[in-house]
Every structure is written in C-alpha cells, then in structure tokens.
C-alpha cells in the first residue's frame, strides 16, 4: 500500500535534486531546469496532501494547476531573458555574467 509518506519522500527527493541543481549548475538553462524540479516537487506535495489530509479534496488540485501555469510562465520569461542575454553577452554561464561587482 502506498501511503502519504511515499509521496513525501518522492517530493523531498525531487526538491533536493532541484535545489542541488540550482546551487551547483553554472548554466542558466540548467538552473532553470532545477527550479522546475523544485516547483514540481511542490506539486507532488499539493496533490498528495489533497488526497490524504484535505477534507474538501480540491484546494491542492487548484494549487497544483496554478503552480504548473506559474512554472510555464517562468520558463517563458526566463528563457526569453536568457536568450536575449546570450545574444549580447555570448554566454549562458552565470559565472561569466559579472559586469557588476562590489
């Protein structure tokens, strides 16, 4: 029988993977992928909690739908910014995006 804790383990693993990617990757697109993993970990949580703890059985689903949309919007805006920066700075490596310091 698969219970709530299975989903929580899955989501925390996903979140850990995403956070690890965000913190260690130097490629802006790879960081974006890590962020998407973190958002999807939250989605797994929302959906699992809806099934197991929410008496209304609906709020978590709504939250998951909203988070999916947010993730898509973030990807669109983020990629647009990264592509534009790539055309002028000619790198997607965040270590080399360092005109400003101090």
């Amino acid at each position, binding site marked *: 029988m698969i219970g709530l804790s299975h989903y929580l383990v899955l989501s925390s693993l996903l979140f850990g993977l995403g956070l690890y990617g965000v913190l260690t990757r130097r490629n802006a697109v790879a960081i974006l992928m890590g962020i998407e993993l973190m958002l999807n970990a939250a989605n797994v949580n929302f959906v699992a909690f809806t099934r197991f703890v929410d008496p209304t059985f609906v709020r978590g689903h709504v939250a998951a739908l909203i988070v999916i*949309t947010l993730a898509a919007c973030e*990807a669109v805006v983020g990629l647009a910014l990264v*592509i534009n920066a790539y055309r002028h700075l000619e790198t997607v490596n965040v270590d080399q995006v360092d005109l400003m310091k101090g």
Partner: protein
Amino acid sequence: MPLDWAYVAVFALVGAGMAALPLGLVWLLAPRSHYPQKRVAYESGIIPFGEAWSQFHVRYYLFGLAFLLFDIEVIYIYPWAVVLRELGAFAFVEMLIFLGVLGVGLAYAWKKGALEWV
C-alpha cells in the same frame, strides 16, 4: 512476498546483463586503434570548420514559447468544462473574459510578427 521481490531482482539482473553483454564482448574482442581524426565530428567526409555550437534561429524559441503559453491555458478549461452546468452563467462569462485576454495576447503576438515563419 519476498519471492515476488526475488523475481524483480532476477529480471533486473538479466536485463542489465543483456545490456552489458554485447558491450563487454565488443570491448574484449574488437581490435582498437586510436588516431586524432577519429575524434573529429563527422561532416560527410569534409574537414569540419567553425564552432560545433551552431546558432539556431531565435524564431524556434519564439514558437516554442508561444506554444507553451497557449498550451497551458487548456488545463483551466478542462475543470471548467466539468463543472460548467453547476456554476452557470457566471462561470461562462468568466471563461469568456479569460479567453478574451488570451485572444489579446494572441493578437499581440500576431501583430508583432511572432507567428510569421519567414
């Protein structure tokens, strides 16, 4: 119950073996020779020049991004369609407004030339 898991383990081992066996045989049997030309990218016989990172035209991204945005909207229409009869006119008008705003977005993209495949 433990027996079921033993089946899984046997299948996993056999599966891994099936993948590893041909690779291992090649590694053992095939003759090996190394020279620098082997590491060069294959370009139909001519010597490659320029960067391997070729630039894709930005309109691929534009199309991808526009598609993603209009694709996502559908996830709101499904639950709406399921409960439309119960919610009545209010929900219907709401969805019309939602689609209207999306239509404005589409008109914007169209007018700005994001949909032209030149």
